[in-house]
């Protein structure tokens, strides 16, 4: 077959081109009049509501486990009093954002990929387009904005629950007052911890929505492509999250941590 003879890199280039086209389509429709507010709100609710338990539970456990693991090491250095600070900084800078993003990639990106993929297969997207409506504006812009908006909020939730988990772990072995613990945590988090982390989560949210939409919107005909779209949305979004994480950490360490 002719298609199979196309070398891998050429396909990869084509796919990148498609993504750029899709991205420009997103931005063109973003600034066009007639924003779909009700659909945006509905998506925010769906995305936030569906992930909120999952993100909360995972972050709580991560905080708990992290504190339990850190404790012996810090005791070895005689620096147990550093535990809240260490916890707070690692959760806020890295663990909170990345864990939340990865979970959302698994839950939200796959959901969007499957939803738009099945709309594609059953010709719903075609029907929207052919009727003269604007499917990119209605389906894509709302979802990408909703994830860009909700993932930072979910990360905030994850951070707080992670710290609560850490507090619980500390209290298993020794007694520390909650007030003291959280005061210490808050005191140790500075602007340089919060800002890069916050910017990062905005990118993560965008990646999750964008990759989910892109994979779903461009899936092939045939029912098996729905599963494929969901699957590759998760894989691609997770990969991009780590890549962007690495880049943001590099840049922010150059700017802030010197």
């Amino acid at each position, binding site marked *: 077959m002719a298609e199979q003879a196309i070398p891998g890199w050429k396909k990869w280039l084509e796919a990148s081109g498609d993504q750029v086209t899709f991205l420009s389509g997103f931005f063109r429709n973003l600034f066009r009049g007639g924003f779909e507010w009700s659909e945006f709100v509905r998506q925010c609710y769906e995305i936030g509501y569906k992930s909120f338990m999952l993100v909360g539970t995972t972050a709580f456990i991560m905080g708990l486990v992290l504190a339990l693991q850190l404790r012996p090491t810090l005791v070895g250095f005689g620096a147990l009093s550093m535990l809240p600070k260490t916890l707070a900084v690692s959760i806020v800078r890295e663990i909170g954002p990345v864990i939340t993003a990865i979970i959302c990639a698994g839950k939200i990106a796959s959901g969007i990929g499957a939803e738009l993929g099945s709309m594609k297969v059953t*010709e719903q997207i075609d029907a929207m387009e052919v009727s003269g*409506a604007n499917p990119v504006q209605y389906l894509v812009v709302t979802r990408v904005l909703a994830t860009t908006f909700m993932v930072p909020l979910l990360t905030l939730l994850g951070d707080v629950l992670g710290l609560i988990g850490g507090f619980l772990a500390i209290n298993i072995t020794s007694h520390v007052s909650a007030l003291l613990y959280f005061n210490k945590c808050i005191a140790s988090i500075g602007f340089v911890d919060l800002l890069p982390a916050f910017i990062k989560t905005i990118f993560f949210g965008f990646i999750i929505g964008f990759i989910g939409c892109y994979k779903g919107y461009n899936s092939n005909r045939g029912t098996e492509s729905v599963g494929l779209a969901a699957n590759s949305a998760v894989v691609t979004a997770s990969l991009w999250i780590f890549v962007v994480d690495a880049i943001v950490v590099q840049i922010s360490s150059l700017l802030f941590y010197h």
Partner: protein
Amino acid sequence: MEETDKHIEHKSKSSASKAETVIHIKGLKKSFGSKIVLKNINLDVTRGENVVVLGKSGQGKSVAIQCIVGMLTPDHGSLTVFGDEVTDMNERQLKELRIKIGFLFQGGALYDSMTVRENLEFPLTRVLKLKDQDEIDQRVEEVLDGVGLLDAIDKMPSDLSGGMRKRVGLARTLIVKPEIMLYDEPTTGLDPITSREISELILEMQKKYKTTSIIITHDMECARITADRMVVMNEGEFVAEGSFEELKKSKEQFVRSFFN
């Protein structure tokens, strides 16, 4: 209007009169990869005419009408609608054209996250940009009543049967009162009674709004009721053309075989 007279005259003669050509297709070719689907399509459809397209499964009938709304881009040939070349249109022109064309998908293509009512409101609020809720409600109920599904108004598409989905799909297309209707198998999978009702609805649309239609169907009863003219597609070309009666008595066995 005098157009009505013209239309009747045209219908009786069943040949190209002076009536305005709405869709003009000449030498259209389309292939997917190495697979040639449309070889050489030529078709003129005049205002107010119902053209029925026959053809075996997988011959490219759906592909042909998808080219008309610019969903697929032909490789070669000319395709004009209301005198404008579809492939040369920019995004805005294409959108304007699509508002004038109704497209009934083979599977209905209902938006399955919305209720029947929301499905029907969608083209009114998103395409025609209607604001008046009373007018919207009235149009939704009127068109649903037309397809006999008024009591399904608050159901989700997943709760409807195949035939009901198709009728809602039809209602959603008709609600904007398009000038051209492209029906992709409007009666397939429906019982004979509903099929007949749908066929009569198609005819009524033609009468009432002077809609120009292309109807793809395998249902001979539907073809008999709706067709002013019929064309038969085979291997990417139209191989026969004529009225229902003419084709029924065609010399070619292949054409006649559709009527048995």
